[in-house]
């Protein structure tokens, strides 16, 4: 495997973990526009611990996940009272707060970033992404997973059925924080350098797009969304460069994002429920589990 493909596989694996980190709150009906901030918390926790104290990698990773999860928990308790666009703004504000703190704290390297002495290869990261994928799939089959989906469909009726809607949402948001923390820690160890600009609001927007365009109805959506948004821009880099001939030299990067933007809009119009839907999946599998509505 070439270094380029290897790097792509790792970025894809990290994006898959992050997509599921954002998927869990979204599956309960809560949009999270602060995904990258939780990743930043995990990455900086890992960077700080490994430079200051040093510890076995799994221990550092566990601490990163815990710190990010704890912050998600505390945040969820306060902001999950807000709904809809206000919740989106609250998570966005949180992300700005995290960037502000990192830039202003010297112990975290400020705007210069931090080097990370420990290294982890691509293999373990891909394995962990696989574990996260399978773990979330199993989770959605449990009683808690059902409660999450019921809460997403109709929180009033879910409450009427005796589901602790608030508890369910806080738990899903916290679990999302844990996953983002893991992705952050892995990012720090793989690239051996963290800087706050990596975890900006554009990244948070992309993470939410992975989930919303991939589809929130089934656990496959985030995987497809993450894969699409990781691989397609890279393919365009290649395609655009070859298409435009000599003049494409200066055009390639900007053009591929314009094409990506158009595709994003078309997907939103054509499949507002995301690429992977329950009915679509049912038809694909050729059974009647999710037959379309009869006329």
């Amino acid at each position, binding site marked *: 495997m070439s270094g380029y493909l290897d790097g792509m596989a790792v970025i894809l694996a990290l994006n898959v973990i992050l997509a599921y980190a954002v998927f869990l709150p979204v599956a309960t009906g809560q949009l999270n526009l602060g995904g990258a901030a939780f990743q930043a918390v995990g990455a900086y926790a890992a960077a700080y611990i490994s430079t200051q104290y040093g510890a076995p990698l799994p221990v550092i990773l566990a601490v990163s996940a815990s710190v990010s999860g704890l912050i998600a928990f505390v945040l969820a308790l306060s902001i999950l009272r807000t709904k809809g666009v206000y919740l989106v703004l609250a998570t966005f504000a949180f992300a700005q707060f995290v960037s502000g703190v990192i830039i202003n704290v010297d112990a975290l390297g400020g705007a210069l970033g931090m080097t990370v002495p420990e290294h982890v290869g691509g293999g373990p990261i891909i394995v962990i992404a696989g574990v996260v994928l399978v773990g979330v799939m199993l989770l959605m089959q449990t*009683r808690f997973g*059902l*409660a999450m*989906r*019921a809460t*997403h*469909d*109709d929180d*009033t*009726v*879910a*409450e*009427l*059925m*005796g*589901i*602790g809607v608030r508890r369910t949402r806080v738990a899903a948001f916290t679990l999302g924080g844990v996953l983002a923390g893991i992705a952050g820690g892995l990012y720090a160890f793989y690239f051996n350098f963290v800087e706050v600009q990596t975890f900006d609001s554009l990244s948070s927007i992309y993470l939410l797009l992975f989930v919303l365009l991939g589809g929130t*109805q089934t656990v496959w959506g985030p995987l497809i969304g993450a894969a699409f948004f990781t691989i397609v821009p890279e393919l365009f880099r290649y395609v655009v460069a070859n298409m435009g001939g000599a003049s494409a030299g200066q055009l390639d990067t900007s053009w591929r994002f314009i094409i990506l933007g158009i595709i994003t809009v078309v997907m939103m119009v054509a499949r507002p429920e995301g690429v992977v839907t*329950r*009915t679509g999946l049912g038809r694909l599998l050729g059974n*009647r*589990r*999710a*037959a*379309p*509505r*009869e006329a």
Partner: protein
Amino acid sequence: MPHKREGLLEVTGLDVRYGRNMAVKSVDISVAEGQIVAVLGANGAGKTSLLRAIQGMVRAARGTIRFDGHDITTADTPARVRRGLVLVPEGRQIFVSLTVHDNLLMGAYTRRDTAVARDVDAIYERFPNLAQRRDMLASVLSGGEQQMLAISRALLAKPRLMMLDEPSLGLSPLFVQRMFDLIRTLNRDGLAVLLVEQNTGMALEAAARATILELGAVVLSGDAADVARSEMLTQAYLGAH
């Protein structure tokens, strides 16, 4: 004070407010074990607010709610469900992205016993339509089937009192008839029912007692047969004073 035997549900002096608006004013209502009680009244009379307050979805501004001998005025909704009090809300009330089967399982969410699977089978036996569609998304069901699913789901919580908010709304006459037959059958098996209905004729026929609300307050309460004969009934709906 001599005390008559306490009913399964005892609501006393209940007020519900939304900001400055008083939706329910000093309402007393009781449902005895195994009884059907109808709550009637025009739109905006406070019927839905009354049910929501009893289930704990809105706070009681004043008054007490007792269920099965316990004061539940400040209990949260899941605690009330666990005690055997369940509300089937008005309108579209199923989980559209879950299968029929998963919808039913959600009804048993508060239960920890092992008889859930057996009870779900019993539901399928009662409603073959649901059994045929068990693995389909609940959104493919017709309106009448969705209402049956909503009631079945509520039954899986093993309620002692089921509150139904306008269960016949938007159903075909055939399904309205089936719905009331079902309510009567369940009641014969011991379920107490608090029924909010626009279909006053059917409701009064099924109920033992009835209460009429007007602008949030009780204007008449008594045996269903007496209420059916009362002039108050037409007045309440026509808004005469």
